[in-house]
């Protein structure tokens, strides 16, 4: 492996913050565009500015405080969720010589990010002291926990060919063949996990309309903006990880490595966002059953396929 270039302690938050902010904006633009295309209301250039308008509205809107909330947890939840997204993004390599934090066990960091993300979402539902957010929080925990094991199997499967838990080595090992081809079950399973942990689209069991907006049913103004931003940031981090772990990361002809990473991340984001408008929300109980009886065995099969492929 080539010597890695690390961002220094000051540049790291700036780089990660910028990528997440730009990525979150991209998510909002893609979401606005997908809404209009699917709704048939016509795509127009103002989808580029619509996210800024909506964000501005949330900035000037009152942040309503409910009766006896757990105020500290309520404020902390979006920060924790965004912080986890940042931690996850930091370990994703953008070129052979650059990742913000080139840790030896990037996959393990991601395991931690996903587990703690469940806690952050639960806090967001718990803290307003309101029925529907609390119910959504519990429902999300059931779904989130079910996703975690699938995620672990799928991520270990990408580590096997590289014989390393470092994401840099995992991308390196895809020079000849991307993991999406090497073990094709991986990316679809990872996409389900990504949608599940970020409660996006068909997996929006935390903030669904059936519970009046779920954990964010009571969130308004800056609270809502922070939560929406954190959620989009987490989707960006997942897309970046998916590009590195399954789509060959920086590998690609002609263009520089980071450009390939950005393009693959954007493509994966577009796919995940579009799914939100084309596929209905799953039923929590059915998903949990399906997760343990179908997805988990499939993830195990993915691991076996990867393991056999990694044999000398």
């Amino acid at each position, binding site marked *: 492996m080539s010597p890695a270039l690390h961002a220094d302690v000051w540049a790291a938050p700036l780089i990660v913050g910028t990528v997440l902010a730009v990525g979150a904006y991209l998510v909002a633009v893609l979401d606005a565009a997908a809404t209009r295309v699917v709704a*048939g209301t016509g795509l127009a250039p103002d989808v580029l500015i619509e996210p800024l308008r909506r964000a501005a509205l949330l900035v000037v809107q009152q942040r309503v405080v409910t009766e006896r909330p757990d105020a500290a947890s309520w404020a902390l939840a979006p920060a924790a969720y965004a912080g986890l997204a940042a931690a996850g993004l930091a370990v994703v390599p953008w070129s052979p010589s650059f990742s913000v934090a080139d840790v030896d066990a990037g996959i393990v960091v991601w395991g931690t990010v996903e587990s703690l993300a469940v806690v952050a979402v639960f806090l967001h539902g718990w803290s307003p002291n309101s029925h529907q957010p609390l119910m959504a929080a519990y429902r999300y925990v059931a779904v989130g926990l079910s996703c975690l094991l699938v995620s672990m199997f799928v991520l270990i499967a990408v580590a096997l060919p590289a014989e390393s838990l470092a994401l840099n080595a995992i991308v390196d090992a895809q020079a000849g063949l991307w993991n999406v081809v090497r073990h094709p079950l991986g990316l679809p399973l990872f996409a389900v996990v990504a949608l599940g942990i970020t409660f996006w689209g068909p997996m929006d069991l935390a903030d669904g309309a059936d519970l009046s907006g779920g954990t964010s049913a009571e969130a308004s103004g800056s609270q809502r903006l922070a939560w929406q931003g954190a959620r989009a940031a987490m989707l960006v981090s997942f897309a970046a990880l998916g590009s590195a772990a399954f789509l060959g990361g920086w590998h690609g002809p002609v263009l520089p490595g980071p450009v390939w990473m950005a393009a693959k991340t954007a493509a994966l984001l577009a796919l995940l966002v579009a799914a939100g408008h084309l596929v209905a929300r799953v039923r929590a109980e059915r998903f949990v059953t399906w997760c343990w009886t179908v997805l988990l065995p499939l993830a195990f099969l993915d691991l076996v396929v990867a393991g056999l492929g990694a044999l000398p």
Partner: protein
Amino acid sequence: MAVSALHRLAAAAPVPVFVARGAGAGLLGGELAADRRLRLVASPRQATVVLAAGHFGGGLGPALDRVHDQLPHPRALVWWRAAGGPEPGDDRPGALDHPAAVVHGPGGDVAPVLVDTHRRLLGGDQATAPDAGADEPPHPFEGRGDHGQGGEGMMGGVPFGRPMAMTGDDRDGLALGQVSADLGPFLVGLPAATVARVTFQGEVVQALELRPQAVPEAPVLDPVLARFDEARHRPVPVAELERARARHHLRAVAECFRLAGLWALAARAASLARGAGTGVAGVDPAAVAALGRRLRASALLASWSGVGTFPGRSPFTGGANARAAGLAADARRGDPAYRALGFAMVVQHGGDARARLVQRLAEARHALELASRAADVGAVHHPDHPLETPWGPAPDGGSVALEVVAAALAGADWSDALATLCSLDLVPDAAVAPAGAAP
């Protein structure tokens, strides 16, 4: 000025609107989902404008006030009312006394009014609406009881109106805490003017009571309701009746899409509903068929399969809900005008939420085709012939006791219960004032 630039930017945002459905409004408000200048939101906390559609007498008035007061500032209320309805303040003071704007009649174009209200709010030309209700706890408890806990003994208090969550057996053989809550009457999916009193164990509905709010008779805002009401008393062209039927079913499908998180498809369905309501050009049945293909691709049908199936014989004796359960009952078969048009009934099997959704979309498409044929020959429905409304045979066929529905939903997940109610699209009149219903 940074602040004013921010406000200008905010003023140009799609307007987040919370629709409060009052008496006589039917599903009219849902059609606004088709307008890309607006965003219909699931929680009042997300809105700048609450659209009060219809009339809010009786129990709906205080409910509207509560929703109104939950909107963050700056906020405003727009009242979309039928011409000739009761004036605000007739029975009690409330949020309707000081609307930012009033739109009269279903023909009034409410979307520009909502956009304008939002812009004036953000531009400072419209003052934010003050609370309509008093800022005091609805269930005072402090200082009551031996220890100020609100009641007798350890468990007797009801602080903040919430009794201690006692444990009870659940369907999995566990003893979990039970929590009671009133949801509605403006929740997406619930029947009009109905509050759901739910006892939850986790997300499982331990017990459900659907409590229709007592609402005095109000003038009708929704042109669909008005058209079918008119057809009971005077001759109405079949083409108009069928377009109204298609419009209603498409709106009901849009509500189901919203509930399932398919906001963009809800906008598409709402747009078709609005097209069906325009009359002259109408809407191409092929567009409804295309929506059906999107529906199948969305996996919503698979997701709702087996949800809300009523055990044994369907409690519905007529209407789309009965036909979704395989019951071949449709009053249009007894109408000579329809027979001359070669009317053929559409029926599904299964009687679950999936079948009802498919049935509604199929009936919408069928109604548009019928409307086209009826317009060609000038077919007219006469009031002395049987009339099939979107809910069943007039005057009150297709209705079902809410207790029967509520009892069938005990033990279901809340999201399944709501999907069931949304797919049932219960008869508005029965939902508003069923015989012998508790106030």
